[in-house]
């Protein structure tokens, strides 16, 4: 026996191991993963067979095989050798859909399978003969003489047909997705298989460069070759393929950023082994030195490989720096869902949410529709507006995203990458967001849809809140306007009350009105008319507020006009007044009204009463007690009936008498227990203040009413008119 073979140079041996062991293992795992993910897809199985082929890239390995495993080696090596060309052909025939050739000759694939099976059986018999039992065939090469040419030519035929079918499929592909898959496969085939052909075949054949000499060429060839298995896996695994240029762009980004760290780590380890470990252990004779450098190496290796190592930190930094939006898409959208509720302006809310979704999901086109008066109208858009099936929106019940497809979103169509994102309110749909395709053309993932649903719910709530806030603001503005108008009306009405009371010798007059709503329907007046007479009037218009105030103004105007232009009797004056008010007011509007005329010379007070609380004349007797004289006089309220007649009453006023006229808001003032103050209590209050002047008596009556009501809210306008007479006949 000869001496053992010269040990292979260590760097070359490492390279050999990478080629013989690492790449086949990687491809095999990739193939198993593809078949595991798509077990019902025959193309996945073809790809599994193709990705098993790198195990056969070491033709001379049988010399080193352990004898006990030799049978396995013979069987498997041959099987893969024969299956791979057939699998390549069948992949071209059936990927991504049945080719025209398969439709025309459906039996062809079965013929190829049968032929391949026959060749495998024959080849296995031949190999068994050669390796294990030479007695089977007298001539060991009998089968090979026939089989080898058949195998070579059939393999060449299959490979050639694969390329032809690939181009034919690309030309006749019916869907954009199929075309994209084929383009990716074609690109991978050209790069992967083409690099093998050029680097390992053409360049050495033409004498330009030999990968056995130029090692960098060998590495380049190996790296480029990996494109083929990767594209094979990609075109079958992905639900929807991206176009080649997008894949390239994404791949380059990934390589430049994320994979840089991995490359850095591998390069560091390789350099450590290549330049330090190998020379150290190859030439070291000093055990101490070897131990020292071995420890240093272990330490460096640990730092490179441990978790949270500098390379890991670098990886995270790159992720944050370059892919922050994509990397944190989930986090960003979750935050957006929370912040959507805090924005009160609808336009800002829509703009913020739209812009963030566009940034995070890389969506170039986005249109927001909002429901205005029952119609969905475009409110905001990024890029050209998208067409949206409004009919679909009208039937939407939930916030779940809808695929904006030709079938009205009933089923998700992987070809359609547009989404309708309903913006639901608590009771109705507030609008929708139409999302165009992503820039990557990748479909929306289930995670995207889940997060978008969450964002849309929060946006809907935010919109509803902001709209409610806007409504409240509008109401507040409206109320402020009303309050301002009421204030103006109050000022106007204030002017309708006597600004300056008549100054008549021996007569002290005072009056005041306290309204519930700023303006009211109570009325009092005191003016001179006729020949030195003093007119006193008090009334209470039905209702409250502006409408009552308007009728009160009308009543005052009529009274003032009539007292100046006619000198008729009070009863006639009241009848005319009734007629005028009846004509000027709504059918359900009326007023109680009392009018009296005091003649200071005669000390006589004539009066008519149209349904008003009878005023009281308070007369103090010599013994100090008070006599009450009610100025009762029948007559209907004014403004309710077209015609009414009144009676006139008359009373002689003595010096010291108090005439107190009031509206029911005073006598019916209530406390918190819903108890009425009452006319008697009011008169008692007047009695107690009777030694004061008229203005103070009015104040005393109001103060006593306030004491009784003890802070309970005023429910009706309150008016008091007091005349104190000190004149003598």
């Amino acid at each position: 026996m000869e001496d053992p073979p010269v040990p292979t140079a260590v760097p070359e041996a490492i390279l050999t191991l990478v080629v013989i062991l690492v790449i086949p293992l990687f491809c095999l795992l990739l193939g198993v993963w593809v078949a595991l993910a798509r077990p019902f897809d025959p193309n996945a199985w073809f790809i599994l067979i193709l990705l098993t082929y790198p195990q056969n890239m070491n033709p001379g390995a049988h010399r080193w095989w352990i004898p006990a495993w030799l049978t396995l080696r013979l069987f498997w090596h041959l099987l893969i050798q024969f299956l791979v060309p057939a699998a390549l052909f069948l992949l071209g025939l059936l990927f991504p859909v049945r080719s025209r050739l398969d439709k025309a000759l459906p039996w062809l694939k079965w013929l190829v399978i049968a032929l391949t099976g026959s060749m495998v059986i024959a080849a296995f018999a031949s190999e068994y003969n050669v390796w294990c039992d030479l007695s089977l065939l007298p001539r060991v090469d009998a089968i090979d003489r026939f089989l080898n040419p058949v195998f070579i030519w059939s393999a060449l035929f299959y490979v050639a047909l694969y390329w032809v079918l690939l181009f034919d499929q690309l030309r006749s592909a019916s869907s954009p997705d199929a075309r994209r898959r084929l383009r990716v496969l074609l690109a991978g085939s050209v790069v992967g298989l083409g690099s093998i052909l050029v680097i390992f075949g053409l360049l050495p054949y033409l004498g330009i460069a030999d990968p056995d000499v130029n090692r960098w060429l060998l590495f380049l060839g190996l790296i480029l070759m990996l494109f083929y298995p990767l594209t094979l896996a990609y075109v079958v695994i992905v639900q929807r393929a991206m176009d080649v240029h997008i894949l390239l762009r994404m791949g380059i980004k990934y390589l430049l950023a994320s994979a840089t760290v991995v490359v850095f780590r591998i390069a560091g380890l390789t350099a450590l082994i290549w330049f330090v470990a190998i020379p150290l252990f190859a030439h070291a004779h000093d055990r101490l030195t070897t131990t020292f450098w071995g420890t240093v190496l272990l330490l460096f290796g640990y730092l490179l490989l441990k978790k949270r190592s500098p390379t890991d930190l670098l990886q995270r930094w790159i992720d944050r720096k370059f892919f922050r939006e994509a990397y944190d898409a989930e986090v960003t959208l979750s935050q957006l869902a929370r912040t959507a509720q805090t924005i009160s302006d609808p336009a800002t809310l829509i703009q913020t949410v739209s812009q963030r979704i566009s940034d995070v999901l890389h969506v170039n086109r986005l249109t927001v529709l909002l429901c205005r008066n029952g119609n969905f109208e475009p409110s905001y858009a990024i890029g050209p507006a998208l067409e949206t099936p409004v009919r679909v929106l009208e039937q939407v019940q939930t916030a779940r995203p809808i695929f904006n497809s030709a079938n009205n979103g009933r089923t998700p169509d992987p070809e359609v990458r547009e989404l309708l994102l309903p913006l639901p309110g608590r009771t109705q749909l507030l609008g929708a967001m139409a999302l165009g395709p992503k820039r990557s053309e990748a479909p929306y993932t289930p995670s995207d849809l889940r997060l978008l649903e969450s964002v849309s719910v929060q946006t809907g709530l935010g919109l509803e809140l902001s709209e409610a806030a806007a409504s409240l603001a509008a109401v507040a503005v409206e109320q402020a306007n009303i309050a301002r108008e009421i204030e103006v009306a109050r000022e106007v009405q204030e002017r309708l009350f006597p600004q300056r009371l008549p100054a008549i010798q021996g007569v002290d007059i005072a009056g005041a009105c306290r309204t519930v709503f700023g303006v009211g329907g109570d009325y009092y007046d005191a003016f001179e008319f006729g020949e030195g007479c003093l007119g006193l009037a008090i009334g209470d218009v039905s209702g409250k507020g502006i409408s009552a105030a308007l009728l009160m103004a009308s009543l005052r105007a009529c009274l003032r006009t009539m007292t100046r232009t006619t000198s008729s009797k009070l009863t006639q004056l009241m009848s005319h007044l009734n007629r005028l008010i009846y004509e000027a007011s709504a059918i359900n509007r009326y007023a109680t009204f009392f009018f009296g005329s005091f003649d200071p010379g005669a000390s006589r007070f004539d009066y008519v009463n149209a349904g008003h609380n009878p005023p009281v004349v308070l007369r103090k007797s010599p013994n100090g007690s008070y006599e009450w004289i009610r100025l009762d006089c029948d007559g209907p309220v004014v403004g309710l009936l077209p015609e009414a007649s009144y009676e006139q009453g008359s009373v002689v006023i003595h010096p010291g008498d108090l005439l107190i006229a009031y509206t029911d808001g005073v006598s019916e003032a209530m406390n918190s227990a819903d108890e009425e103050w009452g006319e008697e209590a009011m008169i008692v209050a007047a009695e107690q203040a009777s030694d004061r002047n008229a203005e103070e008596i009015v104040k005393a009556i109001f103060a006593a009413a306030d004491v009784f009501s003890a802070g309970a809210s005023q429910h009706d306008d309150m008016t008091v008119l007091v005349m104190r007479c000190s004149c003598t006949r």
Partner: protein
Amino acid sequence: MPNSGSTNVATPRILYALLFLYAAIAGTYEIANSVSTTIGTFNLRDQVQAPFQLYGNLIESAEPAAVHAGVAKGDTILVIDHLPFTGQALWQRIRWYARPGDAVTLLVRNRTGRH
């Protein structure tokens, strides 16, 4: 249709079983190939170098040592180490366990038919 249900369930099971079998064989092959190639590449067993290359029982090429011993290209091996030559697997086994300096006896028939 009770049968259709069981068929539907059985189909993926068969496919997964097939995939498992395929992966098991390929994985075993990968392990055996890795071990064998590592042993051979780094000469971990101090294995002898083959003095000639065989195809079946035909000597395809002979190293100088074999030529010196009288073996030539085209010879047919009949007996090796006193064992009838049944195939290359026998030669692989002998070579696997041989050490440098060991002798191997051959009975060959040359092209002229002489032994």
